[in-house]
């Protein structure tokens, strides 16, 4: 057994026992010293319909400025590394993630990453659920991994992702791509809105005040991340909340 594999098994044993996200963060930062990466991220990819990528990251240990910019600008959608995750189940170097020369966004992401010291990297896709998947990505100004170190990081990533996903699910935080929870009343108001009723008409049907209907519709819009009533109804239909 090599040194890298021995290290990986030890890290895995500790990751399995992690009881908080901060345990994973600490373990994975320490592993960076052994394998030569500076930073890492554990993330899901956004589903097609998701309006924001902000909820995708499970454990983002990236330079703060880069993390902020990356998620505010939804780089997760144009990053060639993230896009390659959708096409493969095998680990790859960032330099192996293809993009066409006319994809200005893709080139920009790779370019801007270097400003934050992320010039080279390695990514492990994780796809055990249906949906766009996710993965663990390791970055550094210079990353030199032997085949054995890659296999070791592959193993570590499987467990780091799994533990993070489990802790977040058990912690009751709304998983990124679960349908938002709407109340029965909010759904009722949305149904009547979808049927073409004004909020006054809906309030008459539901024997309540117009203000209450509007209150429910506003809450529904907030939960569905919609800016107006039309988008709210469309979003609710697309997510199957109303038929």
């Amino acid at each position, binding site marked *: *057994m090599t040194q890298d*594999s021995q290290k*990986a*098994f030890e890290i*895995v044993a500790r990751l399995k026992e992690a009881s908080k996200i901060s345990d994973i963060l600490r373990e994975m930062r320490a592993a960076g010293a052994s394998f030569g990466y500076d930073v890492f991220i554990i993330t899901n990819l956004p589903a097609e319909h998701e309006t924001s990528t902000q909820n995708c990251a499970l454990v983002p240990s990236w330079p703060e400025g880069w993390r902020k910019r990356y998620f505010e600008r939804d780089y997760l959608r144009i990053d060639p590394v993230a896009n390659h995750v959708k096409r493969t*189940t*095998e*680990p790859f170097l960032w330099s192996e993630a293809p993009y066409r020369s006319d994809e200005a966004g893709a080139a920009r992401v790779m370019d801007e990453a270097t400003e934050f010291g992320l010039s080279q990297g390695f990514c492990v896709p*994780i*796809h*055990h*659920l*249906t*949906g766009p998947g996710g993965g663990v990505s390791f970055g550094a100004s210079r990353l030199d991994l032997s085949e*054995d170190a890659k*296999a*070791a990081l*592959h*193993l570590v990533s*499987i467990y780091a*992702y*799994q533990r993070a*996903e*489990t802790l977040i699910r058990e912690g009751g935080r709304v998983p990124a791509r679960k349908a938002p929870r709407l109340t029965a009343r909010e759904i009722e108001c949305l149904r009547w809105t979808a049927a073409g009723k004004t909020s006054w008409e809906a309030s008459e049907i539901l024997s309540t005040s117009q203000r209450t209907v509007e209150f429910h519709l506003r809450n529904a819009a907030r939960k569905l991340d919609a800016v107006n009533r039309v988008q709210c109804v469309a979003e609710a239909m697309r997510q199957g909340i109303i038929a």
Partner: protein
Amino acid sequence: MVVVLDDDNIARHGDLLEKIYRFRHRLFVERLNWEACRRPDGREIDQFDGPGCIHLAHLEGGEVTAYSRLLPTTRPHLLTEVYPHLAQRGPAPRGATIYEWTRCGTLPARREGRTGHIDPATAGIFIAAAEVARARGLDGLLAQTHPILVNRLMSCGWDVEPLGLPTQYQGHSIMAVYARLTLDTVVESRRFFGLDAAPLHAPRTPSIRPHVAAETRLRA
């Protein structure tokens, strides 16, 4: 429905066993190109099919749509005979309460599930594996598989120990694991596949498909 064949009932189910071997040939040889397993008669049978082996077959309309095989580790099995190099951490666990999960597969036409859910045939086999392990008092199962399924096993409530690092085999990763059965494995498997609303021994309502199994049904 998942049907379980073992030494006790296999003699009475020759027709089903025949369907199983043909299903395996169609899936693993003709579809997944496991050329070493190709046979002129279209029945995929290897040296491990025989006494002690447990077959799990998901049937739809009398046809096999998903399948798995459990091999006793008290006899030669794939990890000892075919993939010993995957167990880099040293000798893998074996014994009367440890089986090896092999030949896990679903007919491609049945893989298209509802969005966000894995298809019922695959779900049936995964839940059946956990239920059979529990019903027979097993400690766990060995498996050699793509790392993706390692995550799935963990999500299904198995306590998964790596037996080695992922290794490249014909362009794909493969690794050996020992998946320990826990008190939660059956429940977590059902939850993972979206079947948490259906407790096992509750009276079945028509809307809930009897995905699994049952050994009890079959032995009766």
